[in-house]
């Protein structure tokens, strides 16, 4: 079982496509990830980079009409690619759980929170209703919700976004999963709450002993909370490195440009922000060659000819750019 191995997620060449057979469009083009226990691996990118779709694909939750394929998708040592949907459904919430961007939308608005808690707990933990109630209180305690009894009697709209997100985290981690996919977990929250919720996630990750995939557009957040960063662009990982390395010596022109912009905005002295011209291509039509080439200031004829593969430039640091290959 998973206890022996350190790796809780091992994905090889994950692909997501949509549309009917005739006009199938590829959206995520071969993402490989490895997440160790008590480690946080970030997927960063702008909207339309395919990061959220990748996160959903890990959960088997991509929208209707899409298809997911992978050479390997091991969660806690169990291969999810060989599972039927009912089998997968049993894994979800137990071995692999997810926290969404908007907690308000993730809960049923017309049911009391406590009711939704006990539903999930009786299903995922196989406990009785009364045990589920006790467990719910313990769980809320673990995420710093003090008046658990009152909270469980409330409806989602009676609570703030920050409170709901705490509860969603508690619920997601109820079965102590091997892997948590956190999709923009703090984007809908105010900055002051962001720090609280991220601290909570980091703490729970240690207690539960799970691995975490953090999907985010926010490089600042990733810098603080991830161990490894995967930068995505147009459905591919274009650069992967341990966090410190990524922020200290980025190689891919896209990462370079993004980081420069973020730092320029954050530093008071900047007179003129250097922005990346244009905008990302549609996910289903990245053009020929390197998808970033049209916006890249280093692009050459070679860039539009071939799709660069991820290649190592240093220990644990891979880059998909023809420039880095020399």
């Amino acid at each position, binding site marked *: 079982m998973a206890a022996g191995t350190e790796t809780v997620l091992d994905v090889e060449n994950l692909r997501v496509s949509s549309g009917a057979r005739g006009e199938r469009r590829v959206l995520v083009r071969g993402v490989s990830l490895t997440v160790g226990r008590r480690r946080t691996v970030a997927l960063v990118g*702008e*909207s339309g980079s395919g990061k959220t779709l990748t996160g959903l694909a890990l959960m088997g939750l991509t929208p209707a009409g899409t298809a997911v394929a992978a050479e390997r998708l091991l969660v806690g040592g169990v291969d999810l690619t060989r599972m039927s949907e009912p089998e997968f459904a049993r894994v979800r919430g137990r071995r692999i759980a997810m926290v969404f961007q908007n907690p308000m939308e993730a809960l049923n608005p017309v049911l009391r929170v406590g009711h939704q808690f006990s539903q999930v707990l009786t299903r995922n933990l196989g406990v009785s209703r009364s045990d589920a109630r006790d467990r719910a209180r313990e769980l809320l305690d673990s995420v710093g919700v003090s008046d658990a009894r009152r909270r469980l009697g409330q409806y989602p*709209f*009676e609570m*703030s976004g*920050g*409170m709901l997100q705490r509860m969603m985290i508690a619920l997601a981690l109820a079965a102590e999963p091997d892997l948590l996919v956190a999709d923009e977990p703090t984007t809908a929250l*105010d*900055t*002051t*709450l*962001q*720090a*609280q919720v991220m*601290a909570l996630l980091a703490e729970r990750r240690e207690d539960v002993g799970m691995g975490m995939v953090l999907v985010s*557009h*926010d*490089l*600042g*957040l*990733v*810098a*603080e*909370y991830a161990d490894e960063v995967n930068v995505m662009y147009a459905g591919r990982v274009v650069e992967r490195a341990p*966090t*410190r*390395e990524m*922020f*200290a*010596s980025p190689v891919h022109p896209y990462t370079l*440009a*993004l*980081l420069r*912009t*973020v*730092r*320029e*905005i*954050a530093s*008071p002295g*900047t007179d*003129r*922000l*250097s*922005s*990346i*011209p244009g*905008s*990302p291509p549609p996910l289903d039509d990245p053009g020929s060659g390197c998808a970033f080439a049209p916006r890249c200031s280093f692009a050459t004829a070679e860039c539009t000819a071939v799709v660069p593969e991820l290649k190592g430039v240093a220990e644990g640091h891979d880059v998909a750019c023809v420039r880095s290959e020399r």
Partner: protein
Amino acid sequence: MQARRDELPPSVDVRDLVVQFRVRAPGVGPRVVVRAVDGVSLRVGRGATVGLVGESGSGKSTFGRALLRLAPASGGSVRIEGEDVLGAGHRELRALRQRAQMVFQNPIGSLNTRMRVGRIVREPLDIQRIGDRVSRRARVRELLDQVGLPRDAEGRYPHELSGGQQQRIALARALASAPSLIICDEPVAALDVSIQAQVLEVLKDVQRATGVSYLFISHDLNVVRHLAHETYVMYLGGVVEHGPSASVFASPRHPYTRGLVAATPVADPERARRSPLLRGEIPSPMEVPPGCRFHTRCPFAEERCREEAPVLGETGDGGRVACHFWRELPREDPRAAPTRGGA
């Protein structure tokens, strides 16, 4: 030019603005009066950019809308270029709305998706009957140029363009009637970083070219610090700190501002992980705490804070702060000592 600008009344001058709503508490509560904006004074000089920051629920967006009477003000005064907004009649208000415009957070939501870009940008000119057909067309071209949109954008529909381009359309429309003030309500919050930078640059270019002033409402301290000359910090309907942006962000005085600064992520893993300085959440505007409205979340709160509301007082270096104890608070700031290092 500079001298004359100073003689002119400011783009907008707000005194003790109050906006209140009657709302029903969640569930089946009685109707209560909520003061979303509670006596805020603010001034934006000609050609200046003034930032207004705060969390959601601070009342900053309501404040912005109230300046154009898009939210009902129930007290105080608003003067746009010296002219009274709150007392203006129907016709005067229409004229005043030429001089102050708005840009919203959600670019596609703020555009009529059934209209082509050219018509969207031209509409304020049509409404205000500025110029004739030919001159309006020319003006639309000029505006599109000014915000960096290609000519062929004119005949397209908003959804055919990217988020950054949509925000440029919104800006072009806002600029159409040559306003003195544009109220920007989180104009880049919905955009990706690389696009944010483009739009921020356009905002600066437009300001340089036209001398328009901005009231820049945002929760993003980095963006505000970058753009705004002056910043106001709002909490639960009131201003807690105000001053030149450089000093507000570099050496925040109010514990709330400190908390905000400390909570802002920095793209640098070498820096110490931020500790959540502020606990809890902003209370509901229906339950504004007595005394200092911030005392429930303030790590430094004392008895006096629970009883007596502090007034916005001068700090002596151009700033103002509403805190009884700002002088006595520990100097160091969790973010003040950058340990930039590493490879």
